[in-house]
């Protein structure tokens, strides 16, 4: 989230698209109710189903899953044509006026530089024209045909209300009504918040779904303001924290990136991470990258990271592919190229697409290690459970070790919520049996590996032998010790350059902020964005003062929000070019003539003059991007692409299948239904229910009673057409497998008319499996396709094709 849950109360319009907060985030959704009750805010829901969120909406519009970009580009087109633009904001705080290189074009679904063989672009033309002064060229009058604003205008012109309706199935009048409601928030004194979740991420163009709404929010001037923002409703309690700390193939904590093998040395690595400002006076905060990186290396390897060895640069693995994400991991496993796999609190046999492929892959491992508080299907993938897991254990040679871990109620530490609040919690109960904390288990593995390398030697032992591990109890570091490492600390005294008798930094002390981190090895910091969370003043994450001066919803003394305890990022954009708040009744930050002040921690240097320094300090431009340059693999502007399995061809680019740069492994392509397949004619989508949390709560008696068994949802029309009765059984099949399910016939799903054709929707909740307290049932991932988003590889769970036929129930 750019903002926070409690800030939603400040909005005028909530748009829920790509999510269902009332169902999946009920206690956060209460802030929508608060905004409606106290401000008269309106709620708009756009979704293929009439969801629980839709049930309390002021306006609901149906949409075919996988067509959100067409809808949103249509809204942008509407705003541009009808002058519903927050002009001052767009001109001052976006790259609308920037001139784009002449070589850049768009034609029939593709941008310049496409290579069909590689399924990739040469993105060299996707950039600004650079002037003789070294800065990006701009035309503040927006007259130049090559400026971003004019290119965008041309790009979205295709998405007329008629075209949008033709692609999305949203009736034209409903689309226009949503446009009108959204466009009202282009006023500087009106704002809109976007609440989205996996309904936008789980597509082969998920990143562009989100980017498209972010562009709309910028055009309306709704980013950086109270009640505005792009608000990702994250799924798990610490999915934000795990991402911040970079537990991904290609990440270093704090959104830095692991080197690739094209960066053989530190100098080459840094050469593309200079972040020289693209406009005069801009902060371009990533210019501090080296300080954060060196401090990270010092946190990892302490004295072994020296200026002479480039701070142990070679200790880091270097990638040969963009990332070894989970889809690639299972692909490699299935090819027999992996030997061991550790699942820590994760149940991939349920959580990833194409269960048959996942099971086949796990069967090829030598060792599978499970760390979990609960039984999981993954731990028992080799066990026969009849039709629900039809395997022969004698044919599976994988050894499996299952380790019992503590759960949330038995451990201590911080969790990061959607609004980036880092909240500390304390243990309340003793673990069951011999269950141990994950920290204890990871420590045992590390200490044993270290011991083996000491005794036996082996391949490149230094990064393991020299890993900083100076905890009081090496077998189980405390949460406080680990949190302090992430916050960062001083290794050697740094003298004050103005007064050498004074120390700027004192060895052994916690740093107060990432602003003091250095690139000379005198500071260590595990995760720079967490600096300030555990300082000499103590554990800031444990703060519990719930005061909120003037009821702004900021709660600055409750826990700690990264970065720097800032509650709304880009908050300098809540004031105009002179630093005057756009809306006095909803002011957040303002320029008092000498410095920035207000209700939040300024997201700008405190004395940066408002006319000089732009609000988007992480960008070298200092402004936000309507044109993404080469940052996105699939284009600087979003384009409507159909899902890989679609009931219709792409109307705007009929030759293009799916997202043209999404990675598809060879064998998976053969497992996709063809476009407009007669065999698999229905548009399916998967989702959650409020009574369940993924595959955990089927282990909970109460939740298992509330929603005891697997079912699918279809419309009355489809039920009639197929002769399926309510509570009857059906077989649902995709190109990858089939499931048996009870059928719930509902008015909440209705057929849509797409490009003149009737499209039926099949809804598939995800929560069941073959272990737990609920009835055994199939999982949605038997059906889903093995393909991910082109930028970040999140699987396309939300749009695929199936068939459904009536049948009898399973034999008990």
């Amino acid at each position: 989230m750019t903002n926070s849950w409690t800030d939603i109360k400040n909005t005028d319009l909530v748009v829920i698209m790509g999510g269902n907060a009332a169902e999946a985030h009920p206690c956060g959704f209460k802030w929508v109710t608060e905004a409606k009750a106290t401000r008269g805010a309106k709620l708009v829901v756009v979704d293929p189903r009439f969801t629980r969120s839709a049930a309390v909406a002021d306006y609901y519009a149906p949409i075919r899953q996988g067509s959100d970009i067409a809808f949103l580009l249509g809204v942008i087109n509407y705003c541009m044509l009808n002058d519903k633009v927050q002009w001052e904001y767009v001109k001052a705080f976006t790259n609308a006026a920037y001139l784009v290189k002449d070589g850049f074009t768009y034609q029939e679904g593709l941008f310049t530089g496409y290579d069909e063989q590689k399924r990739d672009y040469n993105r060299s033309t996707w950039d600004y024209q650079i002037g003789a002064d070294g800065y990006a060229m701009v035309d503040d009058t927006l007259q130049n045909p090559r400026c971003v604003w004019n290119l965008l205008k041309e790009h979205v012109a295709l998405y007329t209300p008629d075209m949008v309706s033709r692609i999305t199935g949203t009736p034209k009048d409903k689309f226009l009504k949503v446009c009108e409601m959204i466009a009202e928030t282009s006023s500087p004194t009106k704002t809109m918040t976007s609440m989205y979740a996996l309904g936008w991420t789980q597509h082969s163009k998920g990143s562009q779904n989100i980017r498209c709404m972010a562009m709309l929010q910028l055009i309306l001037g709704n980013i950086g303001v109270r009640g505005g923002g792009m608000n990702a409703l994250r799924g798990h309690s610490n999915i934000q924290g795990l991402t911040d700390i970079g537990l991904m193939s290609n990440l270093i904590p704090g959104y830095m990136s692991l080197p690739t093998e094209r960066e053989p040395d530190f100098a080459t690595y840094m050469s593309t991470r200079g972040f020289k400002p693209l406009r005069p006076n801009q902060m371009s905060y990533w210019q501090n990258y080296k300080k954060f990186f060196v401090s990270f290396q010092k946190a990892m390897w302490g004295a072994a990271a020296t200026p002479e060895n480039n701070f142990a640069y070679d200790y880091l693995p270097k990638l040969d592919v963009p990332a070894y994400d989970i889809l690639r991991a299972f692909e490699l496993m299935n090819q027999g190229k992996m030997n061991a796999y550790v699942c820590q609190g994760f149940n991939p046999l349920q959580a990833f697409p194409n269960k048959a492929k996942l099971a086949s892959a796990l069967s090829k491992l030598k060792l599978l290690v499970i760390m979990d508080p609960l039984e999981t299907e993954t731990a028992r993938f080799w066990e026969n459970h009849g039709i629900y897991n039809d395997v022969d254990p004698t044919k599976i040679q994988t050894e499996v070790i299952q380790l019992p871990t503590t759960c949330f109620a038995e451990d201590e530490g911080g969790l990061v919520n959607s609004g980036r609040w880092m909240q500390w919690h304390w243990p309340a109960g003793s673990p069951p049996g011999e269950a141990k904390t994950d920290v204890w288990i990871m420590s045992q593995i590390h200490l044993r590996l270290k011991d083996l390398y000491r005794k036996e030697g082996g391949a490149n032992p230094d990064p393991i032998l020299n890993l900083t591990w100076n905890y009081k109890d090496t077998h189980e570091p405390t949460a406080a010790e680990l949190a302090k490492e992430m916050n960062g600390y001083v290794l050697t005294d740094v003298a004050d350059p103005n007064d050498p008798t004074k120390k700027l930094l004192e060895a052994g002390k916690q740093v107060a902020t990432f602003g003091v981190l250095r690139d000379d090895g005198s500071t260590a910091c595990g995760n720079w964005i967490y600096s300030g969370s555990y300082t000499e003043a103590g554990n800031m994450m444990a703060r519990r003062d719930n005061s909120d001066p003037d009821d702004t919803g900021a709660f600055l003394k409750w826990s700690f929000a990264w970065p720097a305890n800032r509650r709304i990022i880009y908050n300098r954009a809540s004031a105009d070019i002179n630093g005057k708040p756009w809306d006095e009744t909803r002011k957040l930050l303002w320029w008092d003539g000498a410095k920035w002040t207000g209700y939040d921690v300024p997201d700008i240097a405190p004395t940066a003059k408002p006319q000089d320094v732009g609000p988007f300090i992480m960008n070298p431009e200092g402004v936000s991007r309507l044109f993404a340059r080469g940052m996105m693999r699939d284009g600087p502007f979003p384009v409507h692409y159909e899902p890989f399995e679609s009931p219709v061809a792409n109307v705007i680019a009929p030759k293009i299948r799916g997202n043209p740069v999404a990675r598809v492994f060879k064998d998976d392509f053969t497992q996709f239904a063809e476009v407009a397949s007669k065999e698999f004619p229905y548009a399916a989508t998967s989702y959650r229910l409020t009574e369940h949390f993924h595959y955990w709560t089927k282990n909970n008696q109460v939740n298992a009673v509330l929603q005891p068994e697997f079912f699918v949802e279809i419309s009355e029309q489809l039920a009639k057409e197929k002769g399926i009765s309510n509570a009857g059984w059906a077989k649902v099949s995709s190109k990858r497998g089939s499931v048996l399910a009870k059928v719930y016939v509902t008015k909440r799903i209705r057929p849509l008319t797409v490009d003149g054709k009737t499209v039926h929707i099949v809804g598939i909740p995800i929560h069941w499996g073959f272990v737990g307290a609920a009835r055994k049932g199939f999982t949605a991932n038997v059906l889903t396709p093995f393909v991910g988003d082109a930028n970040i590889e999140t699987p396309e769970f939300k749009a695929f094709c199936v068939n459904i036929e009536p049948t009898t129930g399973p034999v008990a």
Partner: protein
Amino acid sequence: MNMELSRRQFLRTAGAGIAGTSLGALGFGGVEEAVASAIRPFKLVNTTEVRNTCTYCSVACGILIFSKGDLKKGEKATITHIEGDVDHPTNRGTLCPKGAALLDIVHSKQRLNYPMMRKAGSDTFERVSWDAALDKIARVLKDDRDKNLVTKNNDGVTVNRWTTTGFLAASATTNETAWCTYKVVRSAGMVVFDNQARV
């Protein structure tokens, strides 16, 4: 929403007996005794209260966990009750159908108690000791790493990349667990490394 008297304090006061009520003041001492002996003490009075966060979604509702026994005193603690934290700015004491049933996930019959091992081709898990499980894991990882760590690529560039063993991290563990995990995994050169944020 600062409260003069926290609900916890209120419960303590309420549970302390009825000596301070009007009944006591009016001199019905005997009645009070009889009533007091008939009333079961309020269950939460004898528990330890700990602040925690709901383990499910990222709304991160504040919760209060009540236990018999106090971990801070080195006692064994059994969790007996979980409810919403009224002082929490986001949820203000409310919980959803999942949060309201948290107690049953803590005490789920599917909680794991002991390290288990399934041998190749077997149709069952067998109990093993922690030492046996961890020794085996360390041995397999070390052998695989020694055999398959790519120290240099074909161009002679130092890459120190290990792709034959992978690690899938969680989504509900703490930041501190995540950092500890990151250190152990990354220092080994493992790149097949991901977490639940992918979905």
